[in-house]
């Protein structure tokens, strides 16, 4: 019998064990192939306005995916091989040369991988159509662009290449395994855990404090980029260390405390459950820490991206209040623009205005000295835009808003910059000082306006003065006239937007800003990121869920003896099932809970400036997805463990 025959025979006999490994590899292949084939899909590419963007992002993500797949398969392979140590030992004992065993394992791996790749690419072809449709939807493309149903050769080639590498690596690893262990070790049981790990209350406390400090540092309101970097750096280190310490010290400490509490411990199956967990907990530290941190990051990013996507419309409305806006520098240009917009019957003009704006150099004002943090951006060289009160009110009305400003002579109002959370309380008592023609004119702030009326630019410094003051100002500094239009159905005005872009091509002086292009860009960008982050997040969820599941299965096999004793001592099956379910819950829920907390903080940090938006739905969705997927793994795990430990 050759190694080849032995391998085939082996596989048939080992079918059950192989199925777990097979499934996990299959899933990895399917996901990777699906993702990569989307990248090469002609339909999607054509639909995107910025295909370069799509390409790069997809490429980066597929690398991340490949790395995930490598780690996950590596882990599954290690788990699988460890379960076979006894079998390998048996072969060696029977006199089979290690070289032969190695070759046999290699053949097994090759057969398996070939099967997996074939099945995976087949399944992936089916799934990529499904995911293609989801992606199209997210990108807001109108026509259901044909994603193309057929095997993408480049994708298949790429997949095979990547997984061939992974398979090679794992084969080498198992080959080495045979040579690494002396024969006796292959028969020896796995390393025992510690029934009574030493716990340090100080370390436990340190863990909690570190995490709290990390959170505090991250959530501190920031004023400069350097501060931000510093805060986040501190937060990162604190949270990393704190999380690791949490699992290494705090959790064991808690369990040990429970154990010392006799009335809580000497009660029913608590004795079994708590001692089991304490026994195993040291072995889980690295896995838990990794899962908590990475799931925190994924959750955080997913929430952020989702929020961005959810509010694409809203944020565009804030940054581009009017459908079309341009500076009036050339009457012929103005006329062409006007006619293009007018002739767009599908999107009739609802309002049209000319807004005069005095664009003052910030050095001619005192804004930089006003101690409201956004105004630190009012450096010399930057522009402060000044509007008249009536122009503001006109614009506000044209935009269908109710907000109006009422200024007496010599008063001023500020418009709240986008993404900032200023309140009028900060302005009370302060004045805007205009320094024109040698004069210093202080204008007290009497209001803070919420509605922005012109396109966002950096820095977003707008102030409104009374008509009289504006008139004077306009004499000293020539105002720029902005022609603004508001049309119906601005989210769909693609044709007009394209034509206007063409007209304004190469002309920076007209400063054309359109709602449609910004909306489309935001939607595409956030839609794309949402898809990718969601996809990767799901993959990551599945991978970590599987890892916990495998680990639990291994431990269950080692626990069979203990549970037999319990059955003999008279613990009923129901009681055993309950303690199994409880212990498994602990193992799944703990890293998830910590990860959720981290994710929430991350989300809060990056959405700090988004005032007045209700985040409930995005948050519920992202955390909900996590909980659902983990719950499925949890249920499967309890079921499997129950079957192993609690047989009828």
């Amino acid at each position, binding site marked *: 019998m050759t190694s080849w025959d032995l391998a085939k025979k082996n596989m048939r006999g080992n079918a059950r064990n192989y199925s777990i490994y097979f499934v996990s590899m299959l899933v990895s292949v399917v996901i990777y192939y699906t993702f990569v084939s989307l990248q090469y899909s002609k339909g999607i590419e054509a639909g995107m306005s910025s295909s370069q963007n799509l390409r790069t992002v997809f490429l980066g993500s597929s690398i991340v995916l490949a790395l995930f797949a490598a780690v996950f398969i590596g882990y599954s392979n290690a788990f699988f091989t460890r379960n076979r140590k006894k079998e390998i030992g048996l072969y060696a004992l029977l006199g089979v040369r290690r070289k032969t065993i190695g070759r046999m394992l290699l053949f097994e791996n090759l057969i398996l991988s070939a099967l997996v790749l074939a099945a995976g690419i087949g399944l992936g072809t089916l799934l990529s159509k499904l995911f293609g449709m989801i992606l199209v939807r997210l990108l807001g493309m109108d026509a259901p662009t044909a994603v193309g149903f057929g095997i993408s050769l480049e994708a298949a080639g790429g997949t095979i290449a990547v997984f061939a590498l992974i398979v090679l690596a794992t084969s080498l690893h198992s080959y080495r395994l045979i040579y690494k262990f002396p024969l006796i070790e292959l028969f020896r049981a796995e390393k025992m855990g510690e*029934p009574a790990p030493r716990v340090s209350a100080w370390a436990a406390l340190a863990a909690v404090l570190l995490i709290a400090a990390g959170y505090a540092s991250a959530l501190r309101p920031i004023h400069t980029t350097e501060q931000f970097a510093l805060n986040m750096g501190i937060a990162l280190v604190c949270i990393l260390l704190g999380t690791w310490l949490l699992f290494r010290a705090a959790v064991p400490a808690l369990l040990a405390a429970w154990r010392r509490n006799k009335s809580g411990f000497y009660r029913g199956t608590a*004795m079994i459950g708590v*001692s089991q967990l304490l026994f195993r907990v040291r072995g889980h530290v690295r896995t838990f820490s990794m899962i908590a941190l990475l799931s925190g990051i994924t959750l955080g990013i997913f929430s952020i991206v989702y929020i961005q996507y959810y509010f694409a419309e809203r944020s565009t409305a804030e940054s581009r209040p009017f459908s079309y806006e341009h500076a009036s520098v050339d009457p012929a240009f103005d006329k062409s623009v006007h006619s293009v917009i007018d002739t767009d019957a599908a999107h009739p003009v609802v309002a049209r205005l000319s807004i005069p704006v005095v664009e003052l150099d910030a050095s001619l004002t005192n804004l930089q000295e006003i101690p409201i943090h956004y105004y630190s951006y009012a450096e010399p060289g930057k522009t402060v835009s000044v509007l008249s009160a009536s122009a503001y009110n006109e614009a506000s009305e044209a935009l269908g808003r109710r907000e109006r400003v009422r200024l007496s002579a010599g008063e001023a109002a500020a418009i709240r910059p986008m993404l900032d959370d200023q309140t009028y309380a900060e302005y009370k008592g302060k004045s805007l000082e205009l320094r024109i023609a040698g004069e210093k004119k202080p204008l007290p702030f009497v209001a803070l306006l919420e509605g922005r009326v012109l396109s966002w630019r950096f820095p977003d410094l707008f102030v409104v003065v009374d008509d009289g003051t504006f008139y004077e100002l306009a004499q000293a500094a020539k105002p720029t006239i902005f022609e603004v239009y508001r049309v119906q159905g601005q989210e769909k005005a693609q044709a007009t937007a394209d034509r206007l872009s063409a007209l304004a091509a190469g002309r920076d002086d007209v400063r054309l800003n359109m709602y449609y292009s910004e909306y489309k860009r935001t939607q595409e960008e956030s839609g794309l990121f949402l898809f990718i982050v969601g996809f990767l997040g799901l993959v990551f969820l599945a991978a970590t869920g599987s890892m916990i599941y495998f680990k639990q299965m291994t431990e269950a096999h080692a626990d069979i003896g203990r549970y037999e004793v319990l059955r003999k001592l*008279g613990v009923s099956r129901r009681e055993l099932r309950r303690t199994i379910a409880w212990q498994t819950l602990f193992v799944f829920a703990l890293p998830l809970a910590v990860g959720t907390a981290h994710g929430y903080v991350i989300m809060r940090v990056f959405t700090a400036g988004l005032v007045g938006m209700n985040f409930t739905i995005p948050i519920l969705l992202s955390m909900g997805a996590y909980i659902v997927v983990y719950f499925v793994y949890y249920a499967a795990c309890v079921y499997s463990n129950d079957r192993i430990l609690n047989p009828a």
Partner: protein
Amino acid sequence: MKTIVEARNVHKTYGARGNLFTALQDIDLTVMEGEFVGIMGPSGSGKSTLLNLLSTIDRPTSGEIEVDGVSILNMDEARMSAFRRDRLGFIFQDFNLLDTLTVKENIVLPLALARTNLGELERRAHEISERFGIRGILDKYPYQISGGQKQRTAASRAIVAKPSLVLADEPTGALDSKSATDLLECLQELNVRERATILMVTHDPFAASYCSRVLFIKDGSVFTEVGRGETARPLFFKKIMDVLSVLGGGASGVG
């Protein structure tokens, strides 16, 4: 005097049709309260099977078994577990201690499972550990103590809930002679002082000599039975050896 075990016409067969193996054949057994009964026989004679049947771990193919007045045949799983927990105590050859628990926790496990009052639980733990001479190692883990101490822990666990019947399966099998003697002395004392009913399966005639009565099983049925009466233990030992030599010719399981 109460009857603790009453087994009538007990049969146990394994396997499917055409491939039947009879482990036990028409066994009758009665054990009264306070007896220390030994069951001996060569390997494969069915003695462990019998013990499994009496301890509700296995079910007979036919026959009746009553333990402490309760028929254990048609009990559902939940009741059987409760019965095992409250009325039976076990001592196994390989100790079967939970290595995740300390000696003390191992001992009180049955009480904890039955949600016994904490004060009562502690009292019992102290009393029993004193009795078996393991008071000093209460806080140690199984991997830190000797085989003899482990078995005494297991014995403590077996009687801590004051069971009606203690079942021991080759309790001295894994022990050196001194530890074995210690354990057997403890069991005997339990039997004499507390009138604990003990049923012990063994192939070691030395262990069997501590019993008040020994049954010999061969090929699934009872071969013979010897009682100790007032005989001194060494003499009883000799009597057992005689039976064994008749039983086996080249008596297996000796020495």
